[in-house]
């Protein structure tokens, strides 16, 4: 067969070419990148790009409605360091993001331990008590806005009725009151998240170990620390870190309840950035700088979380 017809040779190479394409399309790395591309395109366009654009904005005096801004170096960041409202914002964000956490964690843990018992209507209650975390925060915050109303608050009404106070409490009227009120609403929203995450973790606690410890004479508290806590420790750490990150970078609850008032004394980073960049003066550069001041804290928390998740996987 020294003289094979030319057409047959062509067909063979055509087949191998097609096979090669098919083979290439079936190769894991190619398919992997192909499959990931829609997601990555969206993330690059609407997450990475604005992130770097934000860094650039923060170095300019760019305003809403003007095409460009002048490069001003670190002026926005420096001005913020001397801004009294920004100082309060930093303090408020740390109170709001960190001081609320032990409350959410303890209440959530307690609620999870309760819901882990056997009692009638357990599933209904488990479902109902997660609602604060499920419904739109902007809308549930409106309920809190009325609960905190200077005139109509039912809390004031009850306390007056019981003779505990003379006149209505100004829940949102002063900085101290307003911050406590914001924290309470935040604890209300966050507790169910902790409870449900921890409750799921409790399912992994070996019952035999509990019973064995009980036979050995360990009381409920001892059993909790010796048997339960080691199993749910991972969930607690991860849930806590998530909660801190989200609360630290929150917006809607504070926006609806105080809009940063009275007298700009209850802003957190998100609402202050909004007021500087969009709502009030429209100073995009300044607003971007406010947002980016969150970045170091978020980066540290994310790094801890990432390391922790990695260590749990291994």
């Amino acid at each position, binding site marked *: 067969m020294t003289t094979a017809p030319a057409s047959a040779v062509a067909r063979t190479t055509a087949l191998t070419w097609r096979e090669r394409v098919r083979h290439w399309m*079936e190769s*894991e*790395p190619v398919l992997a*990148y192909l499959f*990931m591309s*829609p*997601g990555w395109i*969206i*993330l690059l*366009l*609407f*997450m990475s790009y*604005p992130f770097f*654009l*934000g860094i650039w*904005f923060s170095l300019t005096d760019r305003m809403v409605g003007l095409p460009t801004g002048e490069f001003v170096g670190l002026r926005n960041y420096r001005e913020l360091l001397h801004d009294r409202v920004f100082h309060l914002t930093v303090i408020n964000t740390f109170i709001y993001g960190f001081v609320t956490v032990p409350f959410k964690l303890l*209440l959530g843990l307690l*609620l999870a331990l*309760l819901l882990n*018992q056997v*009692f009638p209507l357990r599933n209904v209650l488990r479902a*109902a*008590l997660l609602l604060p975390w*499920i*419904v*739109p925060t*902007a*809308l*549930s915050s*409106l*309920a809190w806005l*009325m609960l905190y*109303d200077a*005139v*109509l608050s*039912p809390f004031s*009404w009850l306390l007056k009725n019981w003779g505990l106070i003379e006149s209505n409490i100004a829940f949102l009227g002063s900085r101290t009151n307003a911050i406590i009120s914001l924290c309470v609403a935040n604890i*209300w929203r966050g507790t169910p*998240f902790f409870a*449900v995450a921890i*409750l*799921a*973790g409790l399912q992994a606690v070996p019952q035999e170990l509990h019973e064995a410890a009980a036979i050995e004479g360990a009381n409920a508290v001892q059993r909790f620390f010796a048997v339960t806590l080691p199993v749910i420790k991972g969930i607690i750490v991860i*849930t806590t870190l*998530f909660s801190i990150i989200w609360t630290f*970078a929150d*917006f*809607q609850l504070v926006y609806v309840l105080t809009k940063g008032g009275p007298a700009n004394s209850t802003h957190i980073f*998100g609402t202050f*950035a*909004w007021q500087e960049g*969009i709502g009030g003066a429209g100073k995009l550069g300044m*607003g971007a700088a406010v947002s980016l001041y*969150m*970045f170091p804290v*978020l980066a540290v928390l*994310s790094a801890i*979380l*990432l390391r922790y*998740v990695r260590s749990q996987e291994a």
Partner: protein
Amino acid sequence: MVGSNRLSSRLLFLYIPLLLFTIFLLFPFYWMLIISLKPNSLLLNMRINPLILTQFTLEHYRYLFTNTDFPRWALNTAIVTFGATFLALTSSILMGYALGRFRFRGGNLAGTLVFLAYLIPPTLLFIPLSQVVARFGLYNTYWALILTYPTFLIPFASWLLMGYFRTIPRELEECAMIDGASRVQAMWRIILPLALPGVLSAFIFSFTLSWNEFLYALVFMGSGQMKTIPVGTVSDLIRADVFQWGPLMAAAMLGSVPVAVAYMFFVDQYVSGLTAGAVKG
């Protein structure tokens, strides 16, 4: 004696604490509901107990549908929610499959980046993103939210689905591929149906997060008729510190109902999604 002891300890350590939690966590919803049904004449009368509903009216709900743009906000919210959820779910199934199934250079790095993307909050991005949205000509259109919501939906949903895809044995699709199915066919016919609980979880989560989103909706679609329910309720029903509490609470009720219903039906998917997200990362 023993029985009554047991009962009193259950009361003290279980039922009473549970009752207190229930009051604390559900009272705002109870309040929302009674105010939305209370006639205006009773609302401001502080001499009667405000916690009890003595008469009720649907007037506030009627007002919401006839005197405000609420029906339009509901439509906007639904369009954006389904659009963003569809886009995010499609991209996430593909992304989660790639991350959970394929061995390739950069796979670990891609997984880490997705995880980190999940931790980038909207408050960090919204100011520059508003300019990106404007530059693409998307400002005050549905696309402004349909395209930006997936930035926080995709990382979560991909991570969740990656976990689900990993639990399905590789042999299943290898068998299908030996029988002549292509990789894509094996994925579509064999693996995806098995990962359906995960897809459902991701769907419920994406739906809820999109429905509830506030900041991007406020900034990118916050004017005129294009508001979503949370934004419209907060910005249009509160005018110059005059609060129309009845309609406000009625809107808060109606805006909460879809997610509450979705969640009640799928509470187990929700919880498993939550813990897959929170526990596995």
